[in-house]
């Protein structure tokens, strides 16, 4: 049975990271070039890691399925990045960011990791500013901040509504300079379809070239996965279309435990789906909740235009229920309440699947020009998508899957339980517990890549100085290559009747219905019978045309959907086993009389890590107990 050792250093929380940096083994500068590190994924986490490792002298090979690293999904983040700089003099500190993150995560994260995240947040902003990331500035030339996602301090740094884009370009450019210098070799359009493990250690990966179909082995001294989240298990999400769980899932099948797959964040402010053809959902930045008021008509049959409905007939459900926080309650609370009113039949829009986010009051108060300056690009985006003008009539919004807190289990060094295999960024589970605070994912991705892994990886590598990477003609590689090739070609032989997208959409419907914003035993059990049935049908009846030896987007997608089909089942089982509500995991059976999430710290204060037992047996649960020595768990209350 797998045992998980988080390897949290001893000492007071504020000293752990310093102590640890002092105690980890180091690789001497001249020896670093003798180590080859494979970095899979070139989003914020992967690009920052690849650049930093190469700057240290390691030989890095970076892999992405995209044509260019600049396309990684991190590019889409709008709102901002947190850091405990306290530039606003408003009482922020490393400890406060730590405290807020542990509390926001509903006491399901590891304190030591969160504290370190909060510490290195300071360095991230320095690093990015030095790279020329064009953060918003005050007239005096110093950095601007805003309060984000209901935080009580202004600690969010931003670059217009394109923070993720600018941070990713910074990391991509740092990596580009290392490519030019020869420290990083980039493999683009390389789809990683397996992780190679030999004698219990990660020794390489198998890729498929998305242009030629060539399947190839790559070996290294360590493998780093920075492959993003699994939100597309819902089919409809705010993630980019090609985001997937494949690399993490294949690592799981090779022995890496997968932690807390049921934790998913549903973002409250997205544009509602408009029809079957809908391929993805678009996020409207959370910052809109600073000024917009959320409501639905009180009367189910009220067919009047929004502007014609008087205040008495409007139900400002967040403001009424949570007078202190109003429209700025945390994401999970805002989302669930929107679902409640829509389920009650109070939804608005042609499909009655949204709630209003209304700017009439702020426009009346500050004028259209001020609103345009603040949110112009978001309003334009809304109009482009819906054909409606939000200056004239309220936006319609509804929650959508946005971020996944679960992921590969990692220890304090960001290493999975498979030695030599690391997981960074959204694809690990480490820092956000059961719910992530706004503007903290970008922070975590860059913390992991710039400031954590470069320190911790030496601990694993140092003793391997005399070892060459396992050659790619080793039987372990040959077997993995053959498996990937067979699996890929196998799809073409099915000659079924329904497209890959069809099955992905069907899977998404089940997962959203029964394991979305609110879950209950009956629904989860239903999902547990429906998902395997759908998977069987998919594996027998999917239709993939074309060839395996050239560009074939259906073939790219079918492997990913296949992995989602397995992952979805584990996600539902995890949700079923967790008999409590916490953060983004809301079990209807476990709520306070006021309808808020009710945790069970006595029985569920642990990380649920699932251990693969082979294709025909369910994963086994391995628990990492969570202890809270610094932040005392309390019931979250936003009244």
């Amino acid at each position, binding site marked *: 049975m797998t045992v998980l050792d988080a390897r949290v250093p001893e000492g007071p929380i504020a000293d752990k990271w310093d102590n640890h940096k002092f105690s980890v083994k180091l690789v001497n500068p001249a020896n670093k070039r003798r180590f080859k590190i494979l970095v899979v994924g070139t989003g914020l986490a992967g690009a920052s890691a690849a650049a930093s490792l190469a700057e240290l002298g390691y030989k890095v090979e970076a892999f992405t399925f995209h*044509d260019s690293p600049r396309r990684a*999904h991190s*590019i889409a983040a709008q709102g901002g990045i947190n850091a405990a*700089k306290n530039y606003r003099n408003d009482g922020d500190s490393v400890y406060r960011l730590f405290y807020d993150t542990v509390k926001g995560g509903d006491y399901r994260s590891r304190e030591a990791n969160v504290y370190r995240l909060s510490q290195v947040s300071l*360095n991230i*902003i*320095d*690093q*990015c500013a*030095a*790279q*020329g990331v*064009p*953060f918003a*500035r005050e007239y*005096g*030339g*110093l950095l601007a901040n805003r309060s984000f996602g209901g935080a009580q301090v202004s600690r969010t740094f931003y*670059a217009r509504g*394109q923070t993720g*884009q600018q941070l990713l370009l910074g990391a991509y*450019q*740092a990596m580009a*300079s290392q*490519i030019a210098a020869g420290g990083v070799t980039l493999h683009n359009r390389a789809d990683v379809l397996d992780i190679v493990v030999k004698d219990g250690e990660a020794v390489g990966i198998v890729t498929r070239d998305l242009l030629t179909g060539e399947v190839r082995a790559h070996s290294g001294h360590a493998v780093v996965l920075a492959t993003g989240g699994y939100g597309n298990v819902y089919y409809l999400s705010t993630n*980019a*279309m*090609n985001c997937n769980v494949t690399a993490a899932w294949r690592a799981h099948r090779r022995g890496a435990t997968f932690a807390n797959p049921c934790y998913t964040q549903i973002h409250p402010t997205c544009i509602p789906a*408009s*029809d079957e*053809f*809908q*391929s*993805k959902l*678009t996020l409207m930045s959370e910052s809109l909740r600073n000024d917009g008021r959320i409501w639905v008509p009180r009367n189910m049959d*009220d067919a*009047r*235009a*929004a502007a014609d*409905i008087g205040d008495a007939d409007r139900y400002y459900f967040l403001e009424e229920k949570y007078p202190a926080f109003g429209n700025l309650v945390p994401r999970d609370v805002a989302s669930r309440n929107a679902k409640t009113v829509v389920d009650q039949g109070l939804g*608005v*829009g*042609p*499909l009655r699947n949204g709630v209003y986010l209304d700017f009439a009051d702020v426009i009346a108060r500050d004028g259209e020009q001020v609103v345009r300056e603040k949110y112009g690009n978001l309003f334009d*985006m809304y109009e482009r*998508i819906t*054909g*409606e003008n939000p*200056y004239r*009539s309220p936006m319609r919004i509804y929650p959508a899957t946005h971020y996944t807190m679960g992921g590969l289990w990692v220890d304090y060094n960001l290493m999975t339980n498979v030695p030599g295999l690391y997981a960074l960024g959204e694809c690990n589970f480490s820092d956000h517990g059961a719910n992530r605070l706004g503007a903290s994912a970008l922070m975590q991705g860059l913390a992991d890549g*710039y*400031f954590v892994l470069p320190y911790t990886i030496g601990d694993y590598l140092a003793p391997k100085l005399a070892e060459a990477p396992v050659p790619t003609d080793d039987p372990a590689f040959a077997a993995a290559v053959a498996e990937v090739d067979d699996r890929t070609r196998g799809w073409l032989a099915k000659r079924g009747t329904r*497209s890959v997208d*069809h099955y992905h959409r069907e899977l998404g419907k089940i997962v959203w219905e029964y394991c979305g914003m609110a879950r209950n035993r009956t629904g989860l059990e239903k999902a547990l019978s429906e998902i395997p049935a759908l998977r069987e049908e998919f594996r027998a009846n999917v239709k993939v*045309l*074309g060839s395996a030896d*050239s*560009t074939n*987007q*259906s073939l790219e997608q079918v492997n990913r959907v296949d992995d989602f089909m397995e992952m979805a089942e584990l996600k539902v089982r995890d949700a079923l086993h967790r008999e409590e509500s916490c953060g983004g995991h809301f079990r209807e059976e476990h709520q306070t009389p006021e309808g808020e999430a009710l945790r069970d710290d006595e029985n569920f204060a642990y990380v649920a890590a699932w251990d693969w037992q082979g294709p025909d047996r369910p994963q086994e649960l391995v628990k990492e107990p969570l202890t809270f020595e610094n932040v005392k768990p309390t019931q979250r209350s936003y009244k």
Partner: protein
Amino acid sequence: MSTGNGSGRGAAGNGHGARLRLKLRIWRQAGPDEPGGFLDVDAHDIPEDCSFLEMLDIVNERLIDDDIEPITFAHDCREGICGTCGVMINGRPHGPESATATCQLHMRKFRDGDEIVIEPFRAASFPVVKDLMVDRRAFDRIIESGGYISAPTGTAPDANEIPVPKDVADFAMDAAACIGCGACVAACPNSAAQLFTAAKLGHLNVLPQGQPERWRRAEAMVETMESFFGSCTNHGECTEACPKEISLDFIAVLNRDYLKAKVKNRRLASQT
């Protein structure tokens, strides 16, 4: 059509739900070295609320039903930021709507019965991969040649030690908004990449942090660009096609910095 609908709950709204019938002519090409040609598709029942790429999704689903391989097209974020998408729509990169990437273009911009010709971006340095997908790796080469500020991890001073005047930061951000889609190249009669390159130079070369490498960067990026792409003859088609409305002013910055760089770099070289 009024855009302010305020249409309340009912489906009545402002024409939501209308369906279009379109005559599509779509470029098909099996691979980089294969001959290409148009496929005519009678696309009926296309919801006007769907995006251009969702329209292609619908067409692809139907092709698959008919055992025809679906059309390959590049896409990812579908919200106008990753720069992956981009096709020629009736001869215009990203289609008829200004400041809009292909993925953000919606079918309500077309009329029932319209003929739409869909082709890949055409430029010698963007070889066709398959159907509507092209290879834009040459852009990465330009960035690798100097499109960065060298600041190895861990060396940075406190972020507020380098004040940047707000208007300079805003100017840099205007340039940095480029998504690397390549529409500027596809729009240019000479397939020049001046706008893309100028956007990155404009971003980095105006910032205080960018000064130490300014001249080296200008020379290296421009020369790498010239090794892949055609020359700029100031047509201005690029900025018209650009989904982020990157301004021609940045090309002026590029030209100025490049000229100065040639002089300065020569002088520096002669001193050593």
